[in-house]
């Protein structure tokens, strides 16, 4: 899903950027603030945007997926996915199992607790998104939408 890609392509080094005094950097700062609010909304559920993205792929796929495919969809390196899945497995939300078709490959799948956590997190995220958009006046939302359209074309 597109929003997973959005999550994964954001850099999260938190370092201050070279110029904070222009429209372009205001834009990046706004996105950072929004991302921080989404992370904060998720944190009571024990999830992060990165963890939720993995759960989201698995929920979407409705089947176990090879780690290599998760890595490709997350646009991240294999070692990153391994760590994420490790943590999700520790939390009991994801289970690894052998791939019967390809013995060198490992599959990850949602546990019932993972499915519940996914649903709860999606709800928390939707609440935060509504609050973020509600804070904008109608004209502001329209301008933002136009700008986003222009930037992605």
């Amino acid at each position, binding site marked *: 899903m597109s*929003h997973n890609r959005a*999550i994964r392509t954001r850099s999260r080094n938190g370092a201050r950027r070279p110029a904070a005094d222009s*429209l372009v950097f205001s*834009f990046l700062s*706004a*996105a950072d603030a929004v991302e921080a609010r989404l992370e904060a909304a998720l944190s009571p559920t024990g999830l992060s945007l990165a963890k939720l993205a993995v759960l989201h792929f698995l929920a979407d796929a409705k089947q176990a997926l090879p780690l290599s495919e998760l890595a490709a969809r997350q646009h991240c390196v294999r070692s990153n996915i391994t760590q994420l899945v490790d943590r999700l497995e520790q939390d009991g939300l994801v289970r690894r199992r052998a791939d019967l078709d390809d013995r060198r490959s490992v599959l990850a799948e949602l546990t019932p607790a993972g499915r519940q956590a996914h649903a709860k997190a999606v709800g928390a995220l939707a609440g935060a998104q509504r609050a973020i958009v509600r804070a*904008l006046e109608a004209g502001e*939302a329209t301008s933002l939408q136009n*700008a986003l359209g222009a930037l992605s074309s």
Partner: protein
Amino acid sequence: MNHRARKRPRRSPAPDKLVFSLLRAAGEVESRLEAALSPSGLSLAKLGLLRVLAEANEPLPLSELAQQQRCVRSNITQIVDRLEKDGLVRRRADADDRRSVRAGLTPAGERAYARGMRALAQAQRAIKSSLKSTDASSLQAALETLAR
């Protein structure tokens, strides 16, 4: 031209769509800025650090750099390592505090900083020009609201 299709939507966009478009667009903008810097061997993180040093006009303790860049010490150490390998920054002992290390720009670092800022300004102008049909003041207001 389809006039109806160009009309602005009367209703606000779906919140999830707007929020994730924002994050995706920010990711793309950041990639464009990184791409503009990469021919000069710099990244936003490296240029950010050069900027702090250039503005300070004197070598700064690594601890202060970490604080100013709002990032953890180990991160700053890595960035300074790479900048030092590129010959843009030089570490030296702090005369006042022997446990502390300061980093300062080399002459090559000063030139790289100027070149990086020019590349960045050019990339920003290109991005802004794609926004010229957007009402700038209400976009700025939206960004300020979001950043609060």
